[in-house]
């Protein structure tokens, strides 16, 4: 099982994401200007500020050469995980419904949050318990969608850090192979930092890919 972690100019969680993936499988970085996916079995779009997010979060990154290939990979059923800025990029690219707006507080929020795992049968969450605790750190995380969406994660009661609609923290697409979330599972993979709950998401992906590729 080989993960590919996309690296844009301005990505800053790419190495934590790479480290998280390496705990459960092989992992390589995918440079934004290279359209080749190098035979990866799943793609992770990490957090950060792709291309500086100068216009609108995620708006410019979606046109990167690597994204053409990621979009094709996702349409073919490949697993794609977008974390924080990665979630924003997937929404702008049309792989996920909705958009991310500035936090209602207008403040950068950085803290641990408890999340309810609403759907524990998805390729991304089948190894998760009912509740996980992982950090958020963002200024633009208020999820909004005018259409009903498939929710995988919600902020626990009283934990919503950004004013997102219906406490939504993470959504998947209709086909269920693309997942975006604002919290950072890659920052919660080592007991040193207080929680290893984030690892369950990477393990879920590995098991899903292993069982489907070998089956």
């Amino acid at each position, binding site marked *: 099982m080989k993960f590919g972690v996309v690296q844009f100019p301005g990505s800053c969680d790419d190495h934590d994401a790479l480290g998280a993936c390496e705990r459960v499988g092989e992992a390589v970085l995918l440079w934004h200007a290279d359209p080749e996916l190098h035979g990866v079995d799943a793609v992770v779009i990490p957090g950060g500020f792709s291309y500086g997010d100068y216009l609108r979060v995620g708006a410019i990154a979606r046109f990167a050469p690597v994204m053409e290939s990621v979009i094709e990979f996702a349409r073919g059923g490949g697993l794609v995980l977008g974390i924080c800025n990665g979630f924003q990029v997937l929404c702008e690219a049309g792989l996920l419904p909705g958009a991310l707006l500035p936090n209602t507080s*207008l403040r950068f929020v950085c803290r641990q949050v408890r999340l309810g795992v609403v759907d524990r049968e998805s390729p991304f969450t089948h190894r998760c318990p009912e509740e996980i605790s992982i950090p958020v750190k963002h200024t633009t995380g*208020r999820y909004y969608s005018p259409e009903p969406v498939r929710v995988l994660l919600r902020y626990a009661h009283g934990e919503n850090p950004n004013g997102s609609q219906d406490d939504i923290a993470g959504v998947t697409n209709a086909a269920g192979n693309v997942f975006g979330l604002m919290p950072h599972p890659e920052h919660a993979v080592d007991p040193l930092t207080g929680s290893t709950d984030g690892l369950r998401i990477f393990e879920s992906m590995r098991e899903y890919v292993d069982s489907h590729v070998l089956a």
Partner: protein
Amino acid sequence: MAGALRARVLIRPKAGILDPQGQAVERALPALGFRGVENVRIGRLVELDIEDPAQLEEMCERLLANPLIEDYEIESDVPVAT
């Protein structure tokens, strides 16, 4: 750029979308003595020189705005400042 026209695109949050930046300004105005102000909404303005203004619509749809959360208004006959 020869033959270019100045255009202006006004981008604003769609009706019904909470605009906390507008709310913050609305709350700040009374502190300066300005009364009777409500419904403050903050968007952004893109000005550009363009040879073919017919491209503006697609530019807005694909990059300048996110039509899910923002409305845009194109003004394509803006006098060029000298």
